[in-house]
């Protein structure tokens, strides 16, 4: 990786930290502590299930919100504030800028997820007083959540390369919601006929398949995750992320920075 990409990535990470993005960790810690105490008192026998479901879903939603809201501003904010001019007038290629920005935000989200995951494990320990082997699958669920973040960050960057921040946020959120129901969309496509079938099938395969990256419910029920799913999800997310980033680079390479 070039030094320039690493510099841009580390500066993006530093910006997120200094903009107090990681303050959401405090909110998350308070939410998890409160929830753990509450479910410990209310739910008998399913405390673990509730804590895992609540914790991992919150990690996913917090991360998606951060990925979209920072992701859409990664390029547009730099253009609007003209900070990009002093970067691109140096020996920095436009693709290096996009990749550096992506890696910086991805790094922020990984650190964010790590600390939130510590909170979930702490809450889990609080309610059950021990860990068990099946809790290891939580790490796979967390890994899939990070893959979701990579896809959504790349999509936010792609949209922000050609549209306004508000439009980018709307597009990215819509894709996240539709992608979370991608399996249902595929099911609907299979049942439809004629042009509707073709359109629904096309849309189902075009949107990111976030539903296959969501194994929160199964790991909460202590069900293992197949190795083949881990491999296929990894390949799918990396390919989708790569394509979205290539799209962002292609658009940004041709963009006039007025």
């Amino acid at each position, binding site marked *: 990786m070039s030094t320039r990409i690493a510099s841009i990535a580390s*500066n993006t990470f530093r910006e997120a930290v200094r903009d107090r993005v990681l303050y959401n960790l405090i909110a998350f810690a308070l939410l998890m502590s409160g929830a753990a105490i509450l479910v410990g008192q209310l739910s008998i026998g399913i405390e673990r299930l509730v804590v895992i479901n609540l914790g991992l879903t919150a990690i996913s939603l917090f991360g998606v919100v951060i990925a979209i809201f920072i992701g859409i501003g990664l390029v547009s904010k730099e253009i609007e504030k003209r900070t990009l001019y002093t*970067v691109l007038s*140096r*020996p920095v290629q436009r693709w290096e800028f996009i990749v550096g920005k992506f890696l910086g935000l991805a790094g922020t989200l990984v650190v964010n997820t790590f600390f939130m995951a510590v909170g979930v494990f702490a809450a889990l320990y609080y309610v059950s007083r021990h860990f068990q082997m099946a809790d290891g699958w939580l790490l796979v669920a967390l890994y899939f959540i990070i893959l979701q973040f990579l896809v959504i960050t790349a999509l936010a960057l792609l949209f922000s390369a050609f549209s306004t921040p508000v439009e980018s946020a709307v597009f990215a959120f819509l894709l996240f919601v539709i992608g979370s129901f991608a399996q249902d969309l595929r099911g609907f496509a299979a049942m439809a006929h004629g042009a509707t079938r073709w359109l629904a099938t096309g849309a189902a395969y075009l949107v990111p398949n976030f539903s296959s990256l969501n194994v929160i419910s199964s790991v909460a029920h202590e069900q293992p995750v197949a190795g083949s799913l881990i491999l296929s999800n990894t390949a799918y997310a990396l390919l989708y992320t790569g394509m979205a980033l290539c799209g962002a680079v292609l658009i940004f390479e041709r963009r*006039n920075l007025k």
Partner: protein
Amino acid sequence: MAAIEILGLAKTYHVGFWRKKENCALKPLHLSVEEGEVFGFLGPNGAGKTTTLKLLMGLVFPTTGSAHILGMKINDPTVKARIGFLPEQPYFYDYLTARELLEYYAELSGVAPKDRVRKVGEVLSRVGLPDAGNLQLRKFSKGMLQRVGIAQAILHDPKVLFLDEPMSGLDPVGRREVRDLMEELKQDGKTIFFSTHILSDAEALCDRVAIIHLGELRGVGAVADLTSSVEGKVELVWRGNALPASLTALVTECHISGDTVRALIPEHNQDAAMEALRRDRLPIISLTPVRTSLEEYFVDQLRPSQAAAGMKS
């Protein structure tokens, strides 16, 4: 070899919802700046100065034409390591300190890690901010940000500097300091291409200037050549208390004070005016040439009717 060579660079934006309306920001521009030269790019707001600089920096893409800096095409990444750019009204990452920002730019410019800290310290001192390195940029005044802007432009010791309105936002002392710094950079052999609408700065600093208006080049040359190209005037002073009828057609401006008359006369009317005074037996006190200022030349070039006639290269 020319440090900067612009060959018919032009930019037209397509605007409107369907992008069918054309907005010509820069008409084909031909310009050459020699190495070691301080070149002023003058024009009123919206003339096309910033568009030209953005084209040269690769921030916007030309509709037609090309440009070379130090003999290399402007989209060649190696040329970027040898140029410095100060955008108009620069804004930087305000969560960083001045030192962190300059270290970041030094990394991007390929400054060796062992030299970074030293170079950042040196450049901060050079722009008059030796004690502000550890202060976050959000706490900086406009003038201090302009100095940081200049610091980041010269940090990596570039051969060619592009400065967009470098004096903007500075108080008179700050402007003087930047002028002195530009003189120093010229002494160091740097080529400086700077845009400004402050003509006194251009007059004091530039070897040559170009005047641009409505995206069109109106004149290029050394300040002295440009100002002498405009027809000069003379101030004729004689003893009297009125403007004789024979002179009214020859004089452009006239002031009478006591028994002295001062009149501004175009150079080509000089002989006729003196002859008229002799005929009327009015004693001539003095005849002084009036130098045309760059400002007068500038205003003259902005008049649409003289656009074509004023071209000079």
